[in-house]
């Protein structure tokens, strides 16, 4: 079954540093997303990306965040100057058709720890 691949699986960074989280979505999917999940909390929408541009973003997705699809396969989330509260699991997802309907395929996530 096709997978969404995320790297790295775990990233530790110092506060104020820039991080880039990488994702390879499923190749024939058209909609891509970043979600985050703070430990023990709900999955929160960050941004959706369609046709090489941001289609919607949440209030969490401020000027510190940016997304890119630089080469038609990779889909990256950049956090310019990390804060302690950015520590979370970041999930990339793409939207497509399953046997039982349309839904997300999530990657296994990048655990970001800001120290």
């Amino acid at each position, binding site marked *: 079954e096709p997978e969404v691949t995320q790297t790295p699986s775990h990233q530790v960074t110092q506060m104020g540093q820039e991080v880039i989280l990488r994702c390879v979505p499923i190749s024939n999917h058209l909609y891509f997303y970043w979600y985050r999940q703070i430990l023990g909390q709900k999955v929160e929408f960050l941004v959706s990306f*369609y046709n090489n541009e941001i289609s*919607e973003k949440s209030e969490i997705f401020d000027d510190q965040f940016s997304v890119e699809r630089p080469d038609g396969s990779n889909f990256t989330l950049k956090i310019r100057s990390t804060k302690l509260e950015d520590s979370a699991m970041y999930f990339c997802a793409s939207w497509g058709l399953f046997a039982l309907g349309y839904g*997300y395929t999530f990657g296994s996530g990048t655990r970001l720890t800001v120290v």
Partner: protein
Amino acid sequence: GQQVMQIPQYQHVQEGEDFTTYCNSSTTLSNIQWYKQRPGGHPVFLIQLVKSGEVKKQKRLTFQFGEAKKNSSLHITATQTTDVGTYFCVGSGGSNYKLTFGKGTLLTVNP
């Protein structure tokens, strides 16, 4: 904005007991999806419901979508330890651009 409430937040059952989680939306949904997240894992798609009053079964799991398309439920018959995890409903208002997750129901099963 669209809010999706899910109850209960936690449910602990004995293996073999049934389990149900409920989702309610503040607005009419075009469709709803259900996901399962094992502890330490990522959400995995279970099903999408689109039609008003729809009922779908997947082995021991039964999914319902309300007539008004504002609520949904997931029922597991005769739980097993492999059912442990958090079950999320995800509501769509019609756009693929932003889907709203419920807080999830964490199911634990005592063997």
